[in-house]
């Protein structure tokens, strides 16, 4: 076992493979020069002395360099071609992408050509000596793209690349060429065995195991990501770090397994955030593992600018450990949504359910715990049940609304970009009636010891949302009651939009905890399930709640609906309830709000 610098490991791989394949050529600008002057980064140092004829200096034309390698491969040889700086590969993109890559698909001709290119920033090298060229090749079927970050991987992967029958883009990191082996972090400081070894294409490596967050990285950025893991550890976040090593093909299996374990993922690379491998992986995770995710997949990459020259600007351009930590704290952990609070324990409890261990166990009985939402609702419900509250009904004829709704719903959607439902009419009417002076009790709450009216001159309207879901494979309907804050200040369309938006958030796990708090009156449209009349239970801190039954419309041109009011009988008596319902009935029956201009 020994330790080598990155460039030395590549050199050793080349030397060994040149010995292995008598018709392997190395081609590039200045690859064959007197000792100490070979190649821009001296990666081929010493090789011309051993393999003189097969180390070929080329002209200053990258397309020719790649094309020479291809010609050699077509005739049964192998080639490793060096592009002096990855930036200059653009001259050879036509040869590599359009010719080499598709040759096997079109003609089933193997092409053992490795295109090595020093990539990434190295410090004020400017826009033409610093690029990460991945995206030039990423969407090109037929190309293998490798990006080792350690001397061990560099040697093993280069050997695999040389032996492969497909053209390989081999990204080397200038910044790592001369890094002393002792300066590698413990987890990346692999020793290199004396004997021959190869690293399979398409296999990533877990650099550090963790349970809270998966960080996928490669190349220069792997080192920053490792630092970020340490910083996150201090914040109590146990991150798993994966070195991708092979960008195409990439290790879907390992990535997916890790994400299924941590439910959160960051892909960090030095290449630009737009159009990089991070975007590809994030997209795949979103599409295929959506249910596993507790937070959106996040990509940390360079901004959408060319690479600047001044050290300050370059520093600002290059993504680093801080960026990874910031992304984790702002996009994944800090601003936790209510859905995350809810969904994680749900998954954990589901996973914790004991399963039938033996054939003796009674498989007809299955233990399914309440969901966290259910638990909260159940607990509050039991408490509020103790309050003396009663229900009474009124019958309203809402034909006018019914007709208007059917007439205007399409125009409304066109005008405001949100759907119009009958609930919006009831909500709006309820808010308007609630704000009438005489009905102050219906928007107030009661404080005990001593008994006090907490009078509220606003309406935070909560409404029940049904969320069809499953628990342990069983169908289940979750109930949430999001709150439209300051509904009394809203015009009709604003209110409609707010209701639709909150309902969407509930159903898509986007609702925030504060959006579920501080309501002072609730409506529930039980009519959508054809229920004739509801029987609502008061919510925390509320004195009344309204259920809207099914609208019965028929041949006789009537549209009747039963409105059921639940009210706390301590502050509100039957007369007051009756007056409130009467006012509401009148408002609805004589509807004269212009929903477009209100």
């Amino acid at each position: 076992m020994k330790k080598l610098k990155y460039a030395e490991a590549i050199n050793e791989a080349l030397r060994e493979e040149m010995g292995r394949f008598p018709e392997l050529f190395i081609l590039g600008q200045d690859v064959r020069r007197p000792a100490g002057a070979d190649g821009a980064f001296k990666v081929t140092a010493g090789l011309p002395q051993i393999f003189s004829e097969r180390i070929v200096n080329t002209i200053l034309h990258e397309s020719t360099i790649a094309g020479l390698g291809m010609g050699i491969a077509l005739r049964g040889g192998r080639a490793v071609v060096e592009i002096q700086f990855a930036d200059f590969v653009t001259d050879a993109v036509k040869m590599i992408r359009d010719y080499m890559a598709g040759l096997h698909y079109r003609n089933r001709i193997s092409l053992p050509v490795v295109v090595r290119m020093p990539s990434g920033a190295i410090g004020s090298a400017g826009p033409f000596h610093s690029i990460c060229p991945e995206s030039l090749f990423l969407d090109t079927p037929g190309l293998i793209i490798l990006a080792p970050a350690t001397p061990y991987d560099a040697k093993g992967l280069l050997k695999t690349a040389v032996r492969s029958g497909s053209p390989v883009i081999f990204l080397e990191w200038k910044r790592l060429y001369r890094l002393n082996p002792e300066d590698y972090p413990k987890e990346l400081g692999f020793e290199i065995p004396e004997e021959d070894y190869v690293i399979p294409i398409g296999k990533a490596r877990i650099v550090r195991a963790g349970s809270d967050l998966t960080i996928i990285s490669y190349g220069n950025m792997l080192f920053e990501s490792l630092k970020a893991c340490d910083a996150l550890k201090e914040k109590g976040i146990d991150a798993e770090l994966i070195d991708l090593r092979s960008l195409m093909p990439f290790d879907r299996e390992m990535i997916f397994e890790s994400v299924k374990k941590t439910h959160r993922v960051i892909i960090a690379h030095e290449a630009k955030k737009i159009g990089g491998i991070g975007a590809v992986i994030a997209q795949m995770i979103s599409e295929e593992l959506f249910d596993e995710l507790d937070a959106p997949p996040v990509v940390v990459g360079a901004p959408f600018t060319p690479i600047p020259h001044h050290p300050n600007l370059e520093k600002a351009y290059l993504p680093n450990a801080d960026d990874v930590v910031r992304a984790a704290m702002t996009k994944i952990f800090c601003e936790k949504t209510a859905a995350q609070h809810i969904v994680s324990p749900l998954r954990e409890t589901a996973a914790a359910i004991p399963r039938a261990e033996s054939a003796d166990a009674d498989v007809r009985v299955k233990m399914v715990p309440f969901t966290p939402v259910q638990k909260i609702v159940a607990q509050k419900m039991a408490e509020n049940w103790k309050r003396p509250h009663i229900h009474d009904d009124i019958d309203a004829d809402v034909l006018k609304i019914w007709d208007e709704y059917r007439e205007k719903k399409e125009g409304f959607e066109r005008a405001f970009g949100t759907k119009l439902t009958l609930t919006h009419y009831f909500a709006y009417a309820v808010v308007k009636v609630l704000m009438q002076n005489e009905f102050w009790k219906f928007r107030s709450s009661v404080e005990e010891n001593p008994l006090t009216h907490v009078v509220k001159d606003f309406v935070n309207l909560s409404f029940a949302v049904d969320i069809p879901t499953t628990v342990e494979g069983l169908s289940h309907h979750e109930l949430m009651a999001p709150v439209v804050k300051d509904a009394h200040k809203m015009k009709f369309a604003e209110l409609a939009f707010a209701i639709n938006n909150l309902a969407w958030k509930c159903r898509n796990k986007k609702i925030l905890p504060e959006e579920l708090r501080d309501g002072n009156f609730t409506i529930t449209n039980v009519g959508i399930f054809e229920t004739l009349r509801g029987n609502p239970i008061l919510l925390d801190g509320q004195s009344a709640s309204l259920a809207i039954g099914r609208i019965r419309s028929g041949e006789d041109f009537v549209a009747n609906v039963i409105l059921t009011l639940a009210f706390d009988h301590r502050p509100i008596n039957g007369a007051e309830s009756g007056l409130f319902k009467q006012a509401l009935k009148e408002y609805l029956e004589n509807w004269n709000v212009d929903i477009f201009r209100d």
Partner: protein
Amino acid sequence: MVVASGKTRPFFKDFDYFCDLENHFIDVVGPNQIYQRELTDLSKLFWSEGGRRDVNLLLRSMLITRRAEEKVFLLWKAGEIPGSIFSGLGNEATSCGVMAAMKYGDPAFPLHRDLGCDFTRGVEAFERGDIPAPLANLYFAQHMSKASSQCKGKDGNIHWGIPKMNRYPMISHLGTNIPNACGAALIEKFRNSGLVAFTFIGDGATSTPDFQALNQAASRKLPVIVIIDNNQWAYRTKLDEQTAAIPLSRKAEAFGIRGFTIDGTDALCVYALTKMAREIALSGTPVLIESVTFRMAGHSAYDPYEKYVPKEDLERWHRRDPIARLTNFLYGKPNLAEEKTEKFDQELNEIRRQLEKELGIEKELDEAIEWARNAPDPQTNTLCDDVYADEAAQKFVASLPDERRRTK
């Protein structure tokens, strides 16, 4: 090889490809040293032992190439060929002439108007068992994009390659084969195999960056020949809009290599000069041959070339029909000096029909078409096959959720 007498005259202005190549060729020997040399006694080729065999091969290859392209055009018209087709009409002497002069092992990188190359080398390839069926069969299957074609339906018409017969595919980005040919020459030189790589480019490709690969060939003394199929049109761009360096062989001087301009409609001239060029290339000087022809068709079958190619040019070059020139040399027909085009065409057709029958060309092609027609079309579950030669990478493609159902 006797192709030139001592009579030379220095390069002159107002060069005319049509007139000034008659019985002459252009030899670029050094800086401003461009000579018009006289071609002499090519008929000797015919009487030499190997020459006679090669001339017969040439004649058959040119005839079958022309006839195959005519038949492919009819099949295309009948909707049996997807996409477009490309015609090498007028280019047969160049493609067949070059190929007949080269050795079987010489790595070849032909272009889309060099179908003649395939038919010429295909004879030996089939005899050797390097191709599974006669070349014509593969040609029609490839154009019909069948599962059994060289490209298995993944690519059509002229984008094929048959590595076993040392013939490599082209891509539509023109000029890109020059570096490949140089690479092939590099390894053959290393192997000391005595083989010479050669590639064809169009007149337009002399403007592409890959033309610069000739610097590599020159500086490393690679055994490589680049033949410019100068048919004077790059799609709809005429040669004088492409370059002012006419004849194009002058460009050889910029690379420090040998350059020739020859009449590309004269099969024997092409053959003889290529033989000479092969020797020069083997000695360490790459060669640029400008073979002058005229594109007697559109860029592709879709191209209405009559709308922009001057009629006079088409008529003038029609009299230089490569097949007519060779049959005239061998059988005295058709009469090249015949004034009436109709008469000329009639004589040409007569001799062609007669030879096609004698040489079994018509039968071979008709059988090939039937063979191709009966071949299966590619199945959609092969769509994602063969993306990679590398096993691990190909496995990845097949594991992608959307690709899974489109692979076997």
